[in-house]
């Protein structure tokens, strides 16, 4: 008898397995989701377990195979997962996700000053974050194209630093003259004083929808038709006034959770298809 440290395949009475794509502050993921799992399990009277996964593609695949039931996806990965998994439903997003932004940063040595003209970035060595990051790749590429800049046409091809922090470091080193990252990360790193002075904020993108909780169909089959509503109610009911809830909200960097629906991500889907990131 030992049970696997990794959750086994779905069984009828199995727990609700939550997961997340590794994005900002990945090293606190474990703590974050431990707390979320406990709070959820207490409120909904369910067994809840958390599985750490470090790879975007793996998280999407595990959602498709039913090994993960409720996943905190980015905009693009959420769309990918939903398209591959018939019956998946968005549950909730943060208040900031309805109005999300990315910031373009440049190395001070370029002499560029803050401006909204992305065309000046063409011809510079430029890096995105992770390949399927909504805020570090997809939406910035879209806005670049809108201003007539070929998102793949940077000299030597664009870089993919792998994470928002790596983007900051690579722009600071001057290896890349410019880059783009999640505004939330930029704000929190600036607040921590962790941003190298060589990195200068250049531009901010218009708003778009990003992160959201996505629920898979097998959990609904197992745990009841009303599961999506119960989850949405719990998330949207989290209140900053309640100390327990506040801890969860703070970990997510949110003021509150709000309901969301698939249509909010249609733009992302369209751009994803355009860029060949969705088949």
């Amino acid at each position, binding site marked *: *008898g*030992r*049970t*696997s*440290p*990794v959750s*086994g*395949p779905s069984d009828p009475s199995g727990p609700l*397995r939550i*997961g997340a794509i*590794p994005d900002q*502050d*990945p*090293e606190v*993921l*474990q703590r974050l989701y431990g707390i979320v799992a406990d709070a959820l399990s207490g409120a909904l009277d369910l067994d809840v377990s958390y*599985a*750490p*996964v*470090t*790879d*975007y*593609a*793996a998280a*999407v*695949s*595990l959602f*498709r*195979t*039913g*090994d993960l039931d409720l996943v905190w996806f980015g905009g693009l990965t959420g769309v*990918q997962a939903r398209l*591959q998994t018939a019956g998946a439903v968005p549950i909730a997003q943060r208040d900031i996700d309805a109005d999300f932004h990315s910031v373009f940063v440049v190395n001070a040595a370029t002499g560029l000053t803050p401006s909204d003209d992305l065309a000046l970035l063409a011809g510079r*060595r430029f*890096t995105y974050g992770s*390949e*399927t990051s909504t805020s570090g790749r997809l939406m910035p590429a879209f806005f670049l194209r809108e201003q007539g800049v070929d998102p793949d046409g940077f000299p*030597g*091809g*664009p*870089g*993919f*630093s*792998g*994470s928002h*922090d*790596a983007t900051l*470091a*690579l722009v*600071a*080193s*001057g*290896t*890349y003259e410019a880059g783009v990252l999640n505004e939330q990360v930029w704000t929190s790193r600036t607040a921590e004083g962790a941003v*190298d002075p*060589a990195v200068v904020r250049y531009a901010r993108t218009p708003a778009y929808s990003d992160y959201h909780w996505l629920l898979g169909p097998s959990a609904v089959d197992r745990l009841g038709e009303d599961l999506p509503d119960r989850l949405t109610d719990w998330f949207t009911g989290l209140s900053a006034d309640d100390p327990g809830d506040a801890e969860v909200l703070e970990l997510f960097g949110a003021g509150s959770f709000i309901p969301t629906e698939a249509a909010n991500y249609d733009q992302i889907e369209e751009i994803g298809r355009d860029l*060949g*990131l*969705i*088949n």
Partner: protein
Amino acid sequence: MTAVLAAPPLHRDRRRWAWGLGGLVVLGWSLAGAGLFSGPVLNPSGLRQFGRFAAAALSPAHDAEFLRVLAEATLVTVAYAALGAALAVVLGSLGAVAVSRTTWGRRRAGWTAVRGVLAVPRGLHEAVWGLLLVNVLGLDPWVGVLAIGIPYGAVTAKVFADLLDEVPRGGYEALLASGAGRGTAALYGLLPQAAGGLLSYSFYRLECAVRSAVVLGLIGAGGLGYQLALSFASLRWEQVWAAVYALAALCVLADVGGRAVRRRVAEPRSADGSRPARDRVLVVAGLGSLALVAWSWWFLALSPATLTSARTVDQLSYVLDAAWPPATEGDLLTAIGSAAVDTVQMSVIAIAVATAGAVLLSGVAARRPGTGPARWAAGLAVRLILLLLRAVPPPVWALVLLFVLLPGVLPGALALGVYALGVLGRLVAEASEEVDGRPRAALRASGAPPLGAWLYGVLPALGGPVLALALYRWEVAIRDTVLVGLLGAGGIGVLLSGRIAAFDWAAVTTVLAAIVLLTLAVDLVSERARAALR
């Protein structure tokens, strides 16, 4: 008895020169492709970022909470590594029989075919295997075990076969001449002589399995690789180094254990020659390995049933449906073509750097009994440095090298080169320990200085094994470009991870096929080169 006896003519020399020259030309072409002769490649302003990474090596994270996390991760890593390596050695031993030249003799077609089949599992990186398996098996510990065991098994098969083929064949041929079958002759004439090398390689595989635990994070199993990946994503270098040191410590354990066993096998306790005697240490080591595998099986709660469950079959057919037929658009094929060129250039530079470094360092890194304390300390230091070079994963090397180099093929190539140097340095040092020491001792006895005795007594005998190792590492470097390709470094790895991220399975199939073909081509070229220089 009327046979006319004449010595066969010598005509290898020209081929040697042709191969040597060809190698140099390819290296020059690769360096040119990396932009070394056209414009700046250095980015001095990134030294500060690089310095942060280097400085953190001296102050690894050591708060209690993090150490506890690391300790847990270590257990998981050990379990996966032990099972993965065990599976690899089992698969490798069976596969070695199937791919060794000794088995096929002069039947080249059969040999080439089997070798080609093996290139498929071998051509894909463990991380790619992990991703593919996740899609079929979901969150199951088998993913980690198989992701390590399958590609390693194929590599092990090839290396075991090469080791057996490289052993002096006098004894083997003498047995054939007295009517022994090929199998039994190999058992008596080749295996005992290759035993040291086989054991050494098996323990080396265990060490690799520990390092490959990086793939385990994918499946949510935790492990040191997962911790390292998390800390790396937020560039917490202190934590990255702590995880690297933990990895390195495990590697040292595998190394020390392997060395002890090898020493006992090479120099069994001198017993009275008239009685049979079993070495108790070896028996304990054997039983201990079995116990470790059994514990790992229990710890991971592996269940063979999942491999054949209906769900697995469903998922497999989903992936196969999506992946077949492969994509054949012209765009994709063009992209693959140019990525393949980058990949080859990157791997050639990597291997040139690693081989040159490994040979230069091997004299110091190799352990030699009966030398002074200064030589011993120097050897230890070099070995530790080599260990760190390979304990830091290639993606980390790629990023920190990218701080000080401009984007392009070069940072990726050097990242792979530095990592491969860590691996090759160790392998070459061990190969030089395995070389017959008597000619060297004979030279020392006539007053030759250490370096001279090494040049004349060891290097010529080392040529074959070093070439074999370097060429084998070349193939690995091709596969590893998957790990470093992303960072603006180009190569087929970018293409693959891009297609995987887009879940474009048909294109993934095409890219994987291209990688396998590239692997196979490298394998065949290597084989030719070695035959010419043998």
